[in-house]
C-alpha cells in the first residue's frame, strides 16, 4: 500500500479530524516509524498524519496537581526541562541512559508510550511516577479527552488501549509527595545504545529506614513494562534490613515474567532482577 494523502496540520482539532477519517498513520518523532516501515514490519496507511506542527503537543507545563508533558517532547527536551529535573529526577535519569544523543534529540515521549515496548526505557520511570496517558479524539465534532493510568494503558508488547481515532496528546504526571525520590537502573551490554536486558525503577518516600509510597517497575521482563505490585506491597513500609531486602528482591524475582530471546535468557533476567533490586535497596538503606 502506498501513501495517498499527507497532512501536517497546525491545530489539534484539525489533526483529530483527519484521524477520525481512518486509515491513518501518525508521524510523531518517526524514529520507530521510518525503520519499521522500510523493513516492512509496519505498513504505512493511506493517510500520513504529521502532528509535529501542532504547538500544544510540545509543551511542558504545570497543570493542577501535576505536570503535563506534551506528546512531542523529545527525550533531550525532558532531560533539560526545569520542571522535569525538579520533580521527576528518575525520568531525567532514564533519559540520560536513552540510546544516543541523536536519538534523544528526535524520540518523543508520546512515541515511546504508544510503542509500548516492554523494554522501553522511559516507560519505567513513568510507571514509578504514576503517570497517566491523556488521549484526545473528535468523535462527534468536538474534541473529547480521557485519561488513564499508564499501567492500564499498556496491554501487550506494542499494544495499548489507544483507539484508532485517538491521539495521545500528553502524559500527565502527578507531583510526587514531598520527599519522594526515584532511582533508575538499566542493564545492557552497552551503556546507552542498547535495548535493555533489564531496567528497574524504584521510588518512594524514605521514612526512618523504610520506604513509603513505594513504587517499583521493571522493563524487559514481561510482555509490558511491569508495575510490580507484589514487590511494592512487600516493600511498602518494611524496615530495610538485609533480611528484608533479600526477601523483597526474591519477591521481585518471582513476580517478573521474562522470556528467552536473542539478548538474554529468562533465567539470567531473573538473576539480574534479584541482584540489582537488592543493590538498589541496599543503596536506599544506606543513604
Amino acid at each position: 500500500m502506498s501513501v495517498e494523502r499527507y497532512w501536517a496540520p497546525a491545530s489539534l482539532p484539525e489533526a483529530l479530524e483527519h484521524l477520525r477519517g481512518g486509515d491513518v498513520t501518525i508521524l510523531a518523532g518517526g524514529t520507530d516509524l521510518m525503520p519499521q516501515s522500510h523493513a516492512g514490519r509496519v505498513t504505512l496507511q493511506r493517510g500520513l498524519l504529521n502532528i509535529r506542527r501542532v504547538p500544544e503537543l510540545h509543551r511542558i507545563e504545570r497543570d493542577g496537581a501535576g505536570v503535563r508533558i506534551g506528546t512531542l517532547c523529545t527525550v533531550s527536551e525532558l532531560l533539560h526541562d526545569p520542571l522535569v529535573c525538579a520533580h521527576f529526577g528518575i525520568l531525567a535519569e532514564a533519559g540520560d541512559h536513552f540510546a544516543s544523543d541523536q536519538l534523544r534529540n528526535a524520540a518523543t515521549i508520546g512515541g515511546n508510550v504508544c510503542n509500548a515496548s516492554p523494554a522501553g526505557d522511559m516507560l519505567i520511570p513513568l510507571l514509578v511516577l504514576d503517570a497517566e496517558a491523556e488521549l484526545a479524539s473528535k468523535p462527534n465534532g468536538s474534541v473529547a479527552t480521557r485519561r488513564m493510568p499508564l499501567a492500564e494503558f499498556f496491554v501487550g508488547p506494542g499494544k495499548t488501549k489507544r483507539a484508532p481515532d485517538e491521539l495521545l496528546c500528553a502524559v500527565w504526571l502527578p507531583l510526587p509527595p514531598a520527599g519522594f525520590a526515584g532511582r533508575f537502573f538499566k542493564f545492557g551490554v552497552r551503556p546507552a545504545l542498547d535495548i535493555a536486558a533489564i531496567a528497574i525503577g524504584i521510588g518512594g518516600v524514605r521514612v526512618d529506614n523504610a520506604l513509603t509510597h513505594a513504587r517499583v517497575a521493571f522493563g524487559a521482563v514481561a510482555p509490558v513494562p511491569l508495575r510490580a505490585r507484589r514487590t511494592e506491597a512487600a516493600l511498602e513500609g518494611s524496615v530495610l534490613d538485609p533480611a528484608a531486602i533479600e526477601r523483597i528482591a526474591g519477591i521481585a524475582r518471582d513476580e517478573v515474567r521474562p522470556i528467552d530471546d536473542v539478548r538474554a535468557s529468562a533465567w539470567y533476567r531473573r538473576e539480574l532482577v534479584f541482584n540489582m533490586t537488592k543493590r538498589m535497596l541496599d543503596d536506599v538503606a544506606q543513604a
Partner: protein
Amino acid sequence: MRVIEKGTLIGKRIAKLDAPEKASGQTRYVHDLDLPGQLYGGILRSTRLHARIKRIDVSRARALPGVHAVLTAADVPYQRPLGVGKDQLPLKGDKVRSLRDEIAAVAADTADIAAAALRLIEVEYEDLPPLTDPAEALKPGAPVIHDEKLPPPAAHESLKAGEPGDADAHRHNVAMTFDYAQGDVVIGEAESDVIVDDWFRLHYVTHCCLGVSGVIAEFGPSGNLTLYSNTQVPFLHKREFAEILDMDPGRIRIIQPPIGGGFGSKLDIYPFEPICVFLAKATRRPVKLVFSREEEFVASPTRQPVLLRLRSGAKQDGTLTFRVCETLHDNGAYTSWGATTPFVMMQTISSLYRVPHCRYHTTAVYTNNPYAGSFRGYGNLQATFAVEQHIDKLAEALGLDPLELRLANAQDPGEITPQGMHFKTCGLKECLRTAAAASHWGDKHRAAIAAQKAPGRYKRGVGMASMLHVGGGAKIYPSDGCGTILKIDDFAHVTLITGASEIGQGSETVLAQLVCEELGIPLDTVTVVNNDTDITPWDVGVHASRTTFIGGNSAIGAARKARAKILAAAAKVTGLPEAELEMRAGHIVAAGSGEAIMNLAKLLRSLHFSDRAELVMTTHYYEPPSKHQNKEYKGDVSAAYAWATQVVEVEVDTDTGLVKLVKVTGAHDVGRVLNRLGIEGQIEGGIVMGQGYAITEELIVENGVVRNPGFRDYKLVTAPEIPEMDIHFIETMDGEGPQGAKGVGEAPAICVAAATANAICNATGVRIYELPFTPEKVYRALHHPAAPVGAA
C-alpha cells in the same frame, strides 16, 4: 648560501593524505558513484536452508515496468564456479545450501523497483534435511551438502545420497583437511611433567565494515568490462573474473573507489559481483548493486568459527614440550578463506613460544551455515586464545610465574623454528618485559589472586598474552611482490603509482612518506595513484599485514633508482662527485655542510629541456626473500615476523557478569615506527576490534539463521566502552623491512581475547573456554559452573 639540515620523516606523526577529503565529506565511495544510464541491481536469496529448487517463476517480475532484466541460473549457462573452493556458482540453479544463496537477480531503473521485482519472483523448493551442527556432518547418514560431488549411482540407481548403500556419502561433507607435525609428540608427552587438555569454542563474528558491500559493473562498447569494486586484491580479482566469465583478463579493468573498511572481508570473490556483471551484460547498461545492512549481515563472510581441542605439556622447570591441536571448522555451505585459516593457526600452535614437538589437524566440514572468510588475524585469534590460556594453566600447575614461563620459552633473534620460520629479528622477550613492567602486571596479578575469595561486588585482574604473526608478507601465492612506477615532473612533483591498495589503513601515506624520505622532498609534493588496474603494476593484495613491508620496499626501490639518476645528473651539472651530494627539502645540497647547491625542480627541468632530454621515470618490483612452504607446510613463508604482548586489566561485576576492559597495555615489535600517528591508529583500532571479539560481538546463528542481522543486537564497541590504552613500540630494526619496519595491521587484534580470558581467571578464579565473554556467560561461569565445552 642557504644551509639545509638533515631531517627525517621517519617516526613522525603524519596526517593521512586523504584525510582532508574524507573529513569534508567529499570522498566518493562506491555507494556515492553513479554512472550515466545506470540501473540498480538486487538479488533474491533463498528462504530455505537446504532444498532443491523445483521451479522459479520470474514472469511477474519481468513484466514490472522499469525492470530491464531478471536472471536465474538458466539465463547464465556460461557462469563458472567461484571462490577458494570453486564450489559455488554465482546463481544457484539446482539446490540451495544456505539462507544467503543467490537464486535470481534483477536490474531495474530504481532500487525500489528492483526490490519490488524481487518480491514478485516465485520459487518452489523441495526441502532437504538440514545440517547445521558441524559435529553431525561426518556421521553416517548425515545430509550431504555438495551431493554433486558424489559419484553417479551405478548399480544403485534408485538410491539417494545418505541412504543405506551409500554409506560413505557423508565423507563428501569434508571441504578441506590440514595436517602438520614437527618433532614427535609421543616423545614430547613422555617428557612432560604436567599436561593440560581442554576444548575451546570460538564463535561467529563479522567484519561490520561501515561501508556496506557494493559494486558497479559496466561493459564498454568493445566488450571490455570495468568494475568499480571494493576488492582488496584487484589483480587476483581480475584473473578470477576472467575465469568466471570466460573472458580475456586483459579486457577487464578494476577501479577501486575508496573503501569503507576491509579487514579482510574483500579478499575473496563473492557471488554478488559476478551477478552484477551478468546484469550489466544482459542489459548493456551499467549496473550498480549495493547491499542493505541486513543483507550485509546475512550474506557476508564471517570470521571462522572453530571448535578446538588443545593438549599442551611442560617440564617441571617450565620448558614447553609439546602441543597437540585438533580443530573442527564449520565450513558453511561454500568454501571461502575461512577454511584456510589453519595455515596461520598451525604457525601459532607450532611456534608461539618455543615448542619442539607439535601436531596439528583441522577438518573443515560443509554445513548449511553461513561461510567464513578472511578476517583480520585470520585464525590467529582463535589459536592464540587456546595457546595462551594453556600457558597460564601450565604455569599454575607447575607453581611457576606465568611471565617467567613465557620468557623461558620465548625465542631469540636468529632462531629458526621447526616449521622453518627464520626469526631474523625477534622482539618477543622485550615485548613481554615491557608490557609486564608498564602495566605493573606482577603486583596486580598477585594482588588479584589474594583477593579472589574476598567479598566484594567488583573483582579486578590482569591477564597477559602474546602473539606471533607474519610481518613481512606471506608467500602463499606464486608471487608475494608489489610493483611501483615513479615519475617526477618538471616541478619536482612526484607521482607514485603503486599496486598496493589503500583500505583505510594509511598505506598510501606511508608509501609517500618512504619515497619522500629517499628523495628529500616535502610530503605534499607526492600524489599516490593506487586504484586502477589499467595503470598500476601488479600487487598480490592487502592481506597478511604486508603492505607497508612489501609496498614500502617496492616504493623505496623505485625512489632509490630515481635518486641515483638525479644525483648522477647533479654530479654532471655541478662537477662534484655523487658521494658528496644529497637531496634535502627539494634541493641538491652538499652532503657535509648542507649548503644548498641547486633547486631540484631546476635540475629536473635542465635534464628535460636539453639535447639529451630525459625525464626521471623509474620502476621497481619487489619480491620478498621468503619461501613457499613445502607440502608439509614448512618453509620461511615471510620475510619477517612480528610479535606483541598485551596485558589486559579487567573489572568483573559479579552481580551481573559484566566484564569491563579497564586498560590494555601493549608492547608491539614493529621493527621501526614509520608514521607514528598511523601506527597508533592501527593499534588502537585493532585493540577495540579484539575487545569486541572478546566481550561484546556475537553473530548469533541458530539452525542456519542469523538471528541478529543489525547493529541493535550485534554489538560493536562504542566510544564510552573503550579501555585506557598504553602502547609501547619495540623497534627491532628489521634488516629487510623498509627503514626497518615490519607489518602490524593484524597484530593488535590478535591477543586481546586471550589476555582477557587470563585476566578474568586472575580476577575471579574462573576460567572460561568459549567466547564471547557476555555478561550472561560470565555470570553463569561464576555462579553455576557450566559443563565442559564440546563432547569428547
